[in-house]
């Protein structure tokens, strides 16, 4: 290709160009060739080393995980689904709500031995834990003795009066006969009649005084009885003939008044004999509320053989140990959501009812269920907390509206109404729910 003279932009016509010169030849000898080859080999080798398959190749993008069906989800109001072949299900400890007879106390109060009957020098006497109680007891005894004496006096006075009147009446009758026959005068008769009147007046006075004394004695006895009760002892208990008896006094807080009644069994443990417990019962409940402690005093009688107990010993009293049947579930089975507690009860292999429950006292690793589930229902124990999210979802009424009349409930139990006033409609509704609950009760496994 040949070029012709041309005119470029901003360029003058070129008339001459440097003459081309042939460059000197480049020598490429053996040494150069070897060097070139080695360089090429080195570069190739380095590139091959770099391009080798990486033992730990760079992070590749991973596929988004396939959205499988959830293993646990809420599937209805108060109902959740847990896939039975899932790993989560294997973690759940299933158990049954069982009715057990427990003797665990309903409540525990503290008390002290108020009085003990001990044999002192061959005589059974009461010993009290405080001088005030002793003084009250003495006063009471004395007042009782005074009453007895006053009663005796009154009787005697009455007898004396009667006897005296009778005697005078006899005399008057004889005198009248004598007057009739003329042996004695009317004056003698009148004297006798006057004496009779005088005697009657004296008798009335004596009887009155005796009655007054009796009344006073009785009042004093009443006061001393009340005093004794104020000191915390029911006087009737002190009249017991039983030997080796101890009376324990405990203060029942106002909040527990409903829980106690006379005759209720109890178990006592004394601080001086911590290894042994004693069974007793509530013998009496003092009708006064202590103004300092605002508590009621309950009195328990317990045997104290060999003078084991001492007045003043402190005691822990477990009240209400009468055997009772309670429904127990493991503590882990109860899940607290909002303001309520819930337990998961089986409906079928993969469906569980979120049952609202009312809990009672705890018993070691278990807790009482007062209301909400039935005996024998299969429930989720350890691991229930793992299902909390689904339980919360199932309680969302905006997602799962409550089925009319169909909400799962325990047999015979209606949901506590939130409103203060129960209208007839509510009551009917509750009754309907109650009825429907019986029909919708889980049919599954029961012992």
């Amino acid at each position: 290709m040949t070029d012709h003279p041309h005119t470029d932009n901003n360029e003058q016509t070129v008339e001459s160009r440097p003459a081309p010169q042939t460059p000197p030849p480049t020598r490429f000898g053996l040494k150069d060739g070897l060097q070139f080859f080695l360089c090429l080999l080195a570069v190739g080798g380095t590139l091959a080393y770099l391009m080798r398959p990486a033992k730990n190749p760079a992070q590749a993008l991973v596929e988004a995980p396939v959205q499988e069906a959830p293993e646990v989800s809420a599937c209805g109001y108060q109902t959740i689904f847990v896939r039975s072949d899932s790993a989560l299900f294997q973690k759940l400890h299933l158990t049954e709500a069982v009715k057990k007879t427990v003797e665990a106390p309903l409540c525990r109060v503290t008390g002290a031995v108020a009085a003990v009957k001990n044999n002192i020098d061959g005589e059974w006497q009461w010993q009290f834990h405080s001088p005030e109680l002793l003084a009250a007891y003495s006063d009471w005894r004395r007042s009782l003795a005074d009453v007895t004496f006053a009663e005796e006096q009154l009787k005697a006075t009455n007898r004396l009066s009667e006897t005296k009147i009778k005697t005078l009446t006899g005399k008057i009758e004889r005198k009248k006969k004598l007057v009739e026959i003329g042996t004695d005068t009317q004056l003698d008769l009148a004297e006798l009649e006057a004496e009779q009147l005088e005697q009657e007046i004296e008798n009335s006075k004596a009887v009155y005084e005796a009655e007054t004394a009796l009344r006073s004695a009785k009042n004093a006895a009443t006061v001393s009885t009340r005093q004794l009760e104020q000191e915390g002892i029911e006087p009737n208990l002190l009249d017991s003939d039983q030997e080796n008896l101890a009376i324990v006094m405990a203060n029942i807080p106002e909040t527990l008044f409903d829980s106690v009644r006379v005759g209720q069994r109890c178990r006592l443990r004394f601080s001086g004999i911590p290894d042994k417990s004693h069974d007793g019962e509530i013998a009496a409940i003092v009708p006064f509320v202590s103004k300092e402690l605002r508590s009621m005093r309950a009195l328990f009688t317990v045997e104290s053989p060999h003078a084991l107990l001492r007045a003043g010993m402190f005691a822990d009293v477990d009240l209400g140990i009468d055997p009772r049947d309670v429904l127990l579930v493991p503590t882990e089975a109860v899940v607290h959501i909002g303001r309520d507690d819930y337990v998961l009860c089986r409906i079928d292999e993969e469906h569980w009812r979120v049952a609202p429950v009312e809990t009672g006292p705890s018993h070691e690793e278990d807790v009482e269920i007062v209301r909400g589930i039935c005996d024998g229902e299969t429930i989720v124990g350890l691991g229930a907390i793992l299902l909390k999210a689904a339980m919360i979802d199932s309680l969302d009424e905006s997602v799962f509206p409550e089925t009319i009349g169909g909400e799962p409930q325990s047999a015979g139990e209606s949901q506590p109404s939130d409103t203060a006033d129960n209208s007839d409609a509510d009551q009917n509704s509750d009754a309907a729910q109650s009825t429907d609950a019986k029909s919708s009760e889980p049919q599954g496994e029961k012992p």
Partner: protein
Amino acid sequence: MIAELMKLSLRHRWIVLGAAAAMIAFCLYAATQLPIDAYPDISPQKVSVVTAYPGCAPEEVERQVTIPIEIAMRNIPKVETVRSQTIFGLSVVDLIFEEGTETYWARQQVNEKLSGIELPDGAEMPELGPATSSCGEIYRYELVSDVGTDVMELRTLNEWVVIPRLLRVPGVADVSNFGGLAKQYVIRFDPIELQRFHLTLADVTAAVASNSSASGGSLLNRGGMALVIRGTGLIENIEQINKIFLKSVEGTPVTIRDVATVEVGAATPWSVYCKDNKDESVEGIALMRRGENPSRVLVRLKEAVDELNASALPDGVRIEPFYDRQFLVDSTLHTVAHSVALGVTLVVLVLLLFLGRPSMALLVAATIPFSFLFALGLMYLTDIPIGLLSIGAIDFGIIVDGAVIVSENIARQFGRRRAKSPDDALRIIHNAALERCHPVFVSVMLVMVAFLPLLTLTSIEGLLFRPMALTLLYALGGALIFALFLVPILAGILFHNGYREWENPLLRFFTPIYEQIIRLFLRLRWLVACLALCALAFVLVCVVPKLGIEFLPYMDEGTIWVKANFPDGISLDQTAHFTKEVREIIMENPDVAFVSAQIGRADAFSEPFPPSRVEMMIGPKPREQWTKVKNKRELIDSIGARLREEFPTTRFNFTQPIIDMVTQDTNGTSAKLAVELSGKDFDTLLDLARQTLQLLKEVPGVLDPSIEQEGPQAQLRIVPDRRLCARYNINIEDVSNLINIAMGGSPVGTLYEGERNFDIVAKLDRKTMASPEAIGRLPVHSADGTPIPLAQVASIDIVDGQTVIARGDGIRHLTVRCDVTGRDEGSFVAEAQKRFEQQIELPPGYKAEWLGMFANLQRAYRHFLLIIPATVGVIFLILAINFGSFRAAFVLLLPIPFAFASGVLALWLRDMHMNVSTGVGFATLFGVAIMDGVLMIQGITKYRHLGYTPDEAIVHGRVDRLRPGLMTTLVAVLGLLPASLAVSLGSDVQRPLATVIIYGLTGSTLFTLFVTPVFYRIFLPPLRKKREIDFLSDDTPQTSAAPPQG
């Protein structure tokens, strides 16, 4: 001016050499002084204010503590964000300062404001968190016993022996304990025993407090001596506690022994630490002070640990570290060293291949150590540590470009004519160097200009890439100095007797073929131009939209950090029980070396975590020992799949320790995406959060969506009834004391065992607190000492209360978070936002903000949208000024879109996303891509000045510059090839950057080789004024065709 300077330096070469030697000496010294960072500290400046308000519900703590503190902090200067978290008994307020705020200045500002705050009685003094950063956890250890030492003793040793020693290590801000049982001396009493002696709880606590004191009575002069009077009355053992006097009953003293049992016990644990197969253990976490160098601090820490293991700990007890930042530093150093070594090797080999002479190749290669040392010297002067990430990203091929151009021309001139004498040789060298000074200067300046906008990056990306940009700028400056001033001088020394040029035989073989191709393309220029543009359009239209966008590449830290949230309200024991199963599952994987788990909140009470929260660190074995998985992603996925299968109702988040804490502090969440809903009413927020959660669950690619703040937690609430309290003559304080002291275990005194001190607490017998009913029976003593059961004066019930109250900038918020898998963050967020706008309506006064890594992505994206065009604009101006023609500048800019398209294609082929690292790569690429074009146009211009026709000038100019062009491209490409292929620890940031540069440069070079001449011919820029300096050498076209005849 550059030419004048060059001439001056050539005239005074020995002075220049002396100055260079002095500079090298200084830089060597600087290199020894500079600390080494594997990762720069990319955490924001944060000051935490931690206030304990024991016994109060979150709502109360928020109202009485958190909000007053937030208000007080409002007008502190340079504060970007104020965030807070309030839990039961604790308030944590975090202030995030602007980037660059000095640590101690920030803390001082906060301290000043704290002094003026009034907090309620019962609230403890607010404290500042340690002066560390999110990257501050550099060392974790377990206290191990071979002799069966129990966890209480281990914790005591940790608190009183190990931690005090480690705190003395310079650079350590704090060392915290996790796990174990806190030793206490417990006065355990039964209410009955107190009742017996008519004593109250207040009597006991007052007695303990008043029976433990030391006194001093000044001096007693005795003869010539002065005796210091000292009264000792501090409690030092259990026997002394037993003997504390309470009251006298009928002349008989009643002591603690008579009413209580004193024993060594443990405080109620709030946390459990377990590791591998051990269900209970004790951990220590060392935090580095902000601004310190981790390598140096670690050296000193390890010395302290060795000292402790050797002599301070009992036999059989030792400190076993399991996490050490040095591992990351060493691994990164190894990776970077490996990549750099290979890169430099390839560069030298290529130089040798093209230049032929080892002397010339080594002369060019000497640029690398010189520029590197120069950069280190400047880094020392500007207080920038050696960042391994920065070093790893240096393309030594680009560094040597200037020297390549100069020395190639020297070699070529020697190839044209032999030197007749040493002076002649010198003249050839000088002229060859001067001829290339301008294009070298312009080329290197363009690359440096391309880096300048990177210095404007902010936040995490700024902290990560600004040091890199500065390091590269400094290195390029050094390379420029070496190329312009030292190469000619050294060449004059080395080749004063002449130089035998050597031509690559492959190049010699292919040059004529290339020339023919150019001629053909010039003839078919319109077709070639159209095809090129079509190819560009194809890539831009078809490939770019398919490319994902993310903020940062996955920066492997080695270990895996797993956060697990069990259902709300779960007890610590149950969480520990299930965590044991989790550990067993993880340890089933043969590629796992250890797993450590932290359950609950740390003892320092600075983290608001409930018992349902577990944080686990999984340490994989060294990669060469892996047998089951191929990479870390597979390991995470396999563990994650197993855990989610076993615990589907538990939320698991897989992240890494450093990035988790950094993004938590920067964005308030460590999630890839978080939607922060703000508003006044909590129930409304919760409702919105649930709707958002449901929405996110339906977006493909979502992983572990959840509401970040823990849900409500059951509380046993004891509320005194004031009316009943009045009736029974009881003060609310008495109820509070019963709860705080007898139930809560608040200390009532201190026992001193030598240097150690332990709390004395007064607690009720365990059986008296076994249930809410039992608690109701606990006695509260009235003013006259009468015991009244608690249930009689207070209501006791179980309710759900707030677990965590989160606030941001003064308003409550809830955060819905999720991670993304299987797709890029950008597209995921776009889809999620679209659904949100369609499905969710925000009530007035409520707002939603999209945060997380996504927020960083948006910020960085907006920034790059500005700086990339700005960079291109500045380059255009420089080129236009230099070449005196907008058309020339335009032609030179044409390789840029092709470089971009090549880089994008490479990312797509390698399954990589666009992120900040690739953005930095593109910015670098745009400067480098035009270097060859600058050379080429210089050559073409020269031939046009010589009178050649445009076509001939193009051909000759292009062929003349073929060797230097190929050399600069090849060294640049091969210099970064190891970094682009590396997969080991520390390579994650360089890999995308290197990929973009390598492939982009390849594409732009191919364009410059074959298509730029065509566009030059089409646009034919006007000639600028001839410069004498461009004609110093005697140029002859090195083409096969006969030159045109004049």
